[in-house]
Structures are given as structure tokens and as C-alpha cells.
């Protein structure tokens, strides 16, 4: 057994154990914290699989933003979901034994299926390597996301936008048009406010770097957008910037700018004969232009998704 294999094996066991603990934990808040830990461990697994782009996305979105959403919701629910006061009754144990047996069997069957697959994957790695020169970028993941399978990414940005519409549609009618998120109590001269004033410069730098680097190295619009969203959330929480009113036209335009640019680009291509076709020789420019617009919209959408339903007067 090599050291690498020992590490992989321990990591896999740890991931499964933390996931199980997150599912079984009695206390809701504990469960969510365990879930975030689980997401970070999964990000390490992606690093081990040499998928740095995915590791970034998993850590920032899968663990970070998803965890933030769950923590926020748990806080709104107050103490609901506290640990059980009563002991375990036989009925409840039986009620859980049956699904447990079912899931163990299903997981075992899946593992057998996975292990039964032939050792060399018939994947698209060689084909992507062959074609990447024509894609305009050298990071294969960006080439797939923005060029080869750009149609997926277009629909994905629409998924994000429509999720925000769905979240906003759940606003109580009296609060429509108001400002999302909880009232912040940061003191203007406090540590958090200082942090909120210092972070944007650094955050913008990191996001711009991720966006630019995404053409040739791990990174890209989604990772950069998530960093921007996180920075913006800290700034709002620190009270440096107010949360925007959901009816603000500038906010609305920012939300649709990225998907609209992508869609418009696709439509222009369709008029020329190829839906979402990049112009020969200029693919890098079009990819970076679309990614820049997408980054801004993704950041706005993710940030507002976390802030949730508008509840405060504008």
C-alpha cells in the first residue's frame, strides 16, 4: 500500500463517516456544521482526483453557499429540530431499520456496479485534448463549459435566475418590493465594518484573477462569481453597503445581463447558422466577454439567493 492510497482510503472513510454523522446528528445545527465539513472534505477529494475547478466549486458553492443557506434557514426556524427529549421507542427503531437495510443494500449494489466497470474509461479526454486548440482557451474545463457544451451553461444560468424569481415569488405580499435579508447590527466602527471595508479590494482582485486565469488554469465565471457574491455578502453584513431593494431596476438589469449576453450571443450565432457558435479565431475574446458578464450576474444572483425573501421596507 502506497502512502497515497492510505491517504485516499482514510479520506474516503472520513467523508462517508462525516456524511453519516450529518444525517444522523440529533441537533439540527450540528448536522449543518457537519454537512459543511463534509463539503470541504469532498473538495479535497476533488483535488485528489485532479479536478481543481470542481474542488473550487464544491468548496465555495457546495459547502459554502449551501451551508450558508441551511444555517440561515435553521436560524429562522429557531429551536425547531432540537434533539429528542424522549428515549428511543422500539417502533421508531424499527421504522428506521427498514429504510437503513434498504439503503445499505442499494449502496452495496451501486458499489458493485461501479467496481464492475472496466478499468479504462471510454471518456472524452483524448477528444477534448485534440480539439482544445480550436476552442479559444487552454483550460479544458472552461473549453467544455463555455464552448463545447456552452448550451448546458446557458440553461444553467437561466436555472439560477429562475430560482431567484422563485425565491422572490415566496415573499409575503405586504413585503413585496422591499429589501432582502435580516437587519444587520454591525457597529460602523466595529471590527466587522473594518473587515467589510478592507475586503472588497482584495475580493475583486481574487475574483478578477479567477476569471482571467480560468481560460488557462482552474477558475472561471462560476468560481469568480461565487467569490464576488461572498465578498458582497460580507460587505452587506458589515453594514458598509445596504442590501438592494428587489424592485430596483439596476438590480434587475444586473441579474439578467449575463444570461442575456449569452443568449444574445447564441442568437447571433444561430442567425449565422450555428447556435452558440464562436467566431473562428476570436473564440477567446467571446468566451472572456461572456464570462465577464456572467460573473457579474452570477455574483448578484448567488448573493441575493442567500439573502432570500425580501422582508424589510426599502
Amino acid at each position: 500500500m502506497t502512502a497515497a492510497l492510505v491517504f485516499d482510503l482514510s479520506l474516503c472513510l472520513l467523508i462517508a463517516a462525516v456524511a453519516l454523522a450529518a444525517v444522523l446528528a440529533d441537533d439540527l445545527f450540528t448536522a449543518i456544521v457537519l454537512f459543511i465539513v463534509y463539503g470541504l472534505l469532498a473538495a479535497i477529494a476533488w483535488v485528489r482526483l485532479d479536478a481543481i475547478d470542481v474542488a473550487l466549486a464544491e468548496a465555495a458553492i457546495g459547502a459554502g453557499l449551501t451551508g450558508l443557506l441551511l444555517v440561515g434557514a435553521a436560524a429562522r426556524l429557531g429551536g425547531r429540530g432540537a434533539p429528542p427529549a424522549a428515549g428511543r421507542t422500539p417502533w421508531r427503531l424499527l421504522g428506521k431499520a427498514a429504510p437503513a437495510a434498504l439503503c445499505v443494500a442499494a449502496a452495496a449494489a451501486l458499489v458493485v456496479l461501479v467496481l464492475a466497470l472496466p478499468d479504462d474509461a471510454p471518456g472524452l479526454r483524448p477528444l477534448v485534448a485534440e480539439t482544445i486548440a480550436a476552442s479559444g482557451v487552454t483550460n479544458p474545463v472552461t473549453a467544455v463549459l463555455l464552448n463545447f457544451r456552452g448550451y448546458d451553461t446557458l440553461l444553467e444560468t437561466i436555472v439560477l435566475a429562475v430560482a431567484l424569481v422563485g425565491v422572490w415569488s415566496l415573499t409575503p405580499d405586504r413585503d413585496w418590493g422591499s429589501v432582502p435579508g435580516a437587519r444587520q447590527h454591525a457597529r460602523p466602527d466595529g471590527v466587522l465594518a473594518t473587515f467589510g471595508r478592507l475586503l472588497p479590494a482584495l475580493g475583486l482582485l481574487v475574483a478578477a484573477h479567477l476569471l482571467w486565469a480560468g481560460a488557462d488554469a482552474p477558475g472561471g465565471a462560476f468560481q469568480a462569481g461565487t467569490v464576488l457574491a461572498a465578498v458582497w455578502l460580507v460587505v452587506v453584513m458589515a453594514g458598509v453597503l445596504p442590501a438592494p431593494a428587489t424592485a430596483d431596476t439596476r438590480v434587475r438589469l444586473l441579474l439578467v445581463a449575463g444570461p442575456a449576453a449569452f443568449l444574445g450571443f447564441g442568437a447571433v450565432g444561430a442567425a449565422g447558422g450555428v447556435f452558440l457558435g464562436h467566431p473562428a479565431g476570436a473564440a477567446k475574446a467571446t468566451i472572456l466577454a461572456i464570462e465577464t458578464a456572467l460573473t457579474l450576474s452570477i455574483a448578484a444572483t448567488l448573493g441575493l439567493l442567500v439573502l432570500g425573501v425580501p422582508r424589510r421596507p426599502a
Partner: protein
Amino acid sequence: MILDIATLVLASAGVVFFIAGTLGLLRFPDVYARLHALTKADNLGLGLIALGLVLQAGNVWQALKIVLVWLLAIFAAATVSQLIARSALVQRSSSPAARDS
């Protein structure tokens, strides 16, 4: 080779600090003592690991990035621990039965 050994020593020392900090988190009686253990140990631990990694950096940019990550982490940790301490203080003063044990 010497660099590798230095990295190994620094990173191991960092891990020791992390373990100490985590033990403090689990064992210490109240929020403030836990925070004390956590921030002191973890910041130093992270610093040692970052230092060890800087030695392995291929060029100045990579080294700078590692230092930047370290600075951001310290910065965030300081802010968050201040917030936790404050909210613990607020909770204690509002409810005489300390809830943070």
C-alpha cells in the same frame, strides 16, 4: 532536500498547533477560553504550514499567493472570533443563566 526537510518540520509543527487548538476547543469550559485556544493555536498553525509551503513555491507569484491566503485567513479568523465573543457577551448579559457553557 534541505528545503523539503524544512517544509516537513514546519508543516508538522503547524499540525501540532492545530491539534492543540482543536483539543482546546473540545476541552475548555467556556466560549472565551475556547476562542483563545482556537485562534492562538490555529493562526500560528496555519502560519507555520503556509511558511512551509512557501519554501516549496516554484516562483515568487506562488509564494505571494500563499502569503495572501494566510493573511486573508488570519484576517477573517480575527473578525469572526471577535464577533463570536461579542455575541457570547451579549447573550450572557441578557440571560443571567450562562448559556454558553
